[in-house]
């Protein structure tokens, strides 16, 4: 099921996220990889689950294999595809493969740089940027590859893209967002945000594009995690108030508190957006609580 169908129906679209394991899926089909187990936990509470593509440039199981496994388990995947590790041949081939294997949603993005990951001496590819990737994907939907050759059996997937509301100057992000929409992006998931005012300012400027936006949120588990993200994860800023608040409770209460804080934040911004993208980083079990705190009706 394409997420665009839900956006078109006016549904508030909820997505989660899992990261493929660092290793292969077991041949014994009764043994599910942890990413599939997490996705199954999310299943009842979200419309779809993003499957990251060698996230943070750390080598893992391919996002396509994991996406297909999720689909086989009845979980709708959003297959993430980045430009970091593939040239235009590989990107197109992977898109055709994904569609052929039943994938309906793909999130097309640049990808973290090799230097942030565990293979620092690898050659960064970046043959295309994310705008060009979306444009190329649109070509495959219309029956042409990037060289202009006809293809048979066009792909028909929903194309998602990303935008970072935390970026300064925001005008540059908006310029790129506009280019992504012109290229064929049909919905956006934002980088994680924690500042209502900042997000509101961003949305005021992004509204004009009239393209569905899901606000992105990474569950803040501990004060240490907040400090770590501020120091090591570019493009995300966790305000001190958040770090203090999650730090104000005992360790055993942090899950409860994290759900409360996340829910409160999402409740404040949900009217501005068409959906929410929650990145639980393993704490999939608190997603239902977050949605309840945010006053978001269960999807089923």
């Amino acid at each position, binding site marked *: 099921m394409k997420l665009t169908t839900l956006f078109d129906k006016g549904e508030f679209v909820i997505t989660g996220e899992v990261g493929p394991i660092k290793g292969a899926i077991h041949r014994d089909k009764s043994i599910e990889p942890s990413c599939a187990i997490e996705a199954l936990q999310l299943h009842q509470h979200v419309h779809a689950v993003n499957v990251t593509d060698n996230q943070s440039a750390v080598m893992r199981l391919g996002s396509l294999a994991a996406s297909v496994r999720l689909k086989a388990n009845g979980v709708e995947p959003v297959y993430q595809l980045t*430009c*970091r590790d593939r040239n*235009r041949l590989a990107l197109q081939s992977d898109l055709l493969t994904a569609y052929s294997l039943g994938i309906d949603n793909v999130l097309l993005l*640049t*990808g*973290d*740089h090799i*230097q*942030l990951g565990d293979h620092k001496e690898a050659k*960064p590819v*970046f*043959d*295309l*940027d*994310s*705008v*060009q990737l979306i*444009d*190329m994907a649109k070509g495959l939907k219309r029956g042409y590859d*990037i060289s202009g050759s006809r293809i048979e059996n066009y792909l028909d997937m929903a194309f998602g893209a*990303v*935008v*970072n509301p*935390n*970026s*300064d*100057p925001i*005008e*540059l*992000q908006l*310029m*790129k967002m506009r*280019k992504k929409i*012109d*290229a064929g992006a049909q919905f956006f998931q934002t*980088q994680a945000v924690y500042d209502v005012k900042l997000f509101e300012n961003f949305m005021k400027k992004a509204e004009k594009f009239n393209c569905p936006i899901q606000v992105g949120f990474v569950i803040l588990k501990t004060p240490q995690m907040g400090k770590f993200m501020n120091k090591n994860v*570019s*493009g995300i*800023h966790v305000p001190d108030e958040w770090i203090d608040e999650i730090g104000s409770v005992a360790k055993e209460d942090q899950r409860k508190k994290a759900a409360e804080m996340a829910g409160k934040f999402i409740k404040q911004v949900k009217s501005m957006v068409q959906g929410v993208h929650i990145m639980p980083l393993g704490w999939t079990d608190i997603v239902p609580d977050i949605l309840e705190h945010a006053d978001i009706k269960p999807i089923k």
Partner: protein
Amino acid sequence: MHATIQKPIGEIVKHIQPGEKVFVVGCNNCAWKCYSGGDDETKMMAKRLTDKGIEVTGYTAPGPKGMSLCKLDHTRKVLMEEHADEVKKADSFLILGCGQGVHTVIDATDGGMVHPGCDTVFGGETVSDTHIEEYCSLCGDCIIEFTGGLCPMTLCAKQLLNGPCGGAENGHCEVDPDRPCGWILIYERLKKLGRLELLDPYQPPKKNSKWSRPRTLEVSPTEATFCSIGGKVTVSNQD
């Protein structure tokens, strides 16, 4: 200019075989400016090799100052005529210059054995006598008309052509917090120039065939022909 840095002496010496006689060649243009292969460094290298027990038959950085080692006819004349005896005695050449200079010595000496004495690190702007910065990646498919002259292929770690990724923080690149985000530099410059509209058009994917090595350039006073796997492009400088 081609920025070069000398290889560590231990690495240079490691590749010279016992009893091998070496002639040291510097470059009086780029390598001179990098203090990696001018007159002084070439002379010094001859001494450093001698101190390590290596027989040096001679040395030169073909002059005058500002003369490039990669000017083949000049280098051939200097090596094969002015230093003919020393060159004849040598088993190999240690070149203190860029990779082009190394190949020039191969051509100038009719296929002599060479040892690179430097790593060629990038093509750069000599910002000051002691500081060189990279502003061009020599891709052969220039788009800086749209970016105020600042090259995203060089200044953006991901070589993005349609704007920044989401990783910049406080104006700096996600790859290196000491390095400015190339796209923010481009944006700030065009904003200052009142030309932000230059960023509006979609930039198509690079023609990487123009970047496929090796490439050649045929030049004349009236036209030039650039030849890559992408084909030949001839442009007049007269019309």
